[in-house]
């Protein structure tokens, strides 16, 4: 479904992403792991058009989407959440998701119909599916960190995606919130048949939900394979454990 071929991006001489490759099949959950600064977020930014690559290609459903602006990428039904909470602070939980739904329904140029009367059911459904319905009228700035991360996912769902990219979905969450978020991701994959690409530092989560794993080190792809393959790969052990021959996890 998604195929990234030899993509590269350099910032002031620093090779953030260096000939990385990634393939995601329909219906899969793929994790990208790697040490801090390996280029995971940059890779996601390259796929979603937030930054343009220096070289390489991104194919989505066999269509070249390399370098398209983010709003065009989103219209191809690719949505994403962000590592650092990135929501509309002054708006309510409901409005945050509603804007996303309105955007998908192409109603953002409507100047005179009150927003309050539009996309109510769709928005409520999404909030219900992620468990934020009871907090829908709360201003986003007043939400807990965990709830805001979940709201991130809800906003991404507003675009009715086929392909969902989650950048460290559980970062900074308390243990209980984390397990709820994992359940949510599993549910999205199973019930909505979403293809999910995510990155995460917590190996327990990665091995718990991913079908396949891609390992990035210094901007490049070390390996992409099943959990088993990745777990015992020497290069991965080098990167994570400094060359010991103990299997990861």
């Amino acid at each position: 479904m998604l195929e990234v071929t030899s993509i590269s991006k350099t910032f002031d001489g620093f090779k953030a992403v260096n000939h990385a490759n990634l393939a995601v099949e329909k219906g899969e959950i793929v994790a990208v792991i790697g040490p801090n600064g390996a280029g995971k977020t940059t890779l996601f930014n390259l796929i979603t058009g937030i930054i343009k690559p220096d070289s390489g290609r991104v194919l989505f459903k066999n269509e070249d989407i390399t370098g398209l602006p983010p709003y065009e990428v989103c219209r191809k039904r690719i949505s994403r959440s962000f590592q650092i909470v990135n929501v509309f602070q002054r708006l309510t939980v409901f409005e945050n998701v509603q804007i996303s739904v309105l955007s998908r329904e192409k109603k953002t140029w409507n100047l005179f119909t009150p927003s309050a009367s539009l996309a109510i059911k769709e928005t409520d459904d999404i909030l219900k599916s992620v468990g934020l319905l009871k907090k829908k009228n709360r201003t986003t700035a007043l939400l807990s960190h965990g709830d805001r991360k979940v709201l991130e996912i809800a906003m991404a769902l507003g675009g009715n995606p086929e392909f969902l990219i989650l950048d460290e979905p559980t970062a900074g969450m308390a243990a209980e919130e984390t397990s709820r978020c994992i359940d949510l991701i599993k549910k999205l994959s199973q019930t909505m048949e979403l293809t999910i690409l995510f990155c995460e530092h917590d190996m327990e989560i990665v091995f718990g939900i991913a079908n396949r794993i891609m390992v990035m080190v210094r901007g490049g792809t070390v390996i992409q394979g099943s959990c088993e393959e990745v777990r015992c790969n020497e290069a991965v052990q080098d990167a994570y454990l400094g060359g010991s021959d103990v299997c990861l996890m």
Partner: protein
Amino acid sequence: MSRKTLLALGAGIAVLLLFPLFLPRFYVYLVSIILLYGLLATSLNLVLGYGGIFQFHHAVFYGVGAYGTTLMLTKTGLPAMLAFIAGPLVSAAFGLVLGIICIRLSKLYFGMLQISLGSLVWAIVYRWYSFTGGDDGIHGIPMPEMLSSPKSAYYFTLIITLVSLFIMWKVIRSPFGSVLQGIRDNPVRSEMIGINVRRHQLLALVLAGFFAGVAGSLFVVVDNTVFPDMLFWTLSLEIVIMCLLGGWFTFLGPMLGAAVIVALRTFVSTYTDYWALVLGIIMMLVIFFLPSGILGYVEEKFKRGFIEPEIEEQ
């Protein structure tokens, strides 16, 4: 909208309608000026408070609207009403052109480029004697019969201001308004949910330019003059302060800010020449003590009791 708000609004409008019946002529003039400045500040707030765009030189659109109407009235034989529509349209078109040039830059850089380009327009108006009247401006602009008395000018201003405010209020509550506020809070996120940020911002700039132009045309009706100072950047600063003082995240805040600033300017100017000094002090006080403005402060106080308690879902 709740019944209470509607009642308060109705009462407010009724008082405004009755004003000319018992107020002396000077105050009728003053209230007209407050109304049109309030409209001007609200139009700025559409992009500043709701759009998060640092439109630092909004007065240019006000001036272009006023000059557009005036030049149509004095230099062509076209019907007066056409001139009143042409002014705001020219101003909106101007908003589009300046917008296209500036929108590539973000935040402060947008504001800086806008101040420079706006000042250029001011310089042209200030120098072009044969067309704009140069630094003298144009005085004694002929008005159609029905707008020639201060009272009729007042009612015209009141009605047009109310209609304009209503339209802007509708726009802010529309999907476009929601998206605009989303862009203000987070442009990157907005793009990622499929919104073409620049195009939406551009439309907001055009709308703001249009309503600033309406305010400019109203000034021509009330004062029968235009002068280059209407496009000078110090006026833009005053408009920004109106928004900040009244509350830039509230709809009626800028109108309140305009009332305070215009009234103060009128009365302070009778005692001292240092109005700018007083304005500077007000600005400082607002920043330190009322960061969300008067109405913003009232709203926060009022809403505090209504925040739902934290209920954890099971």
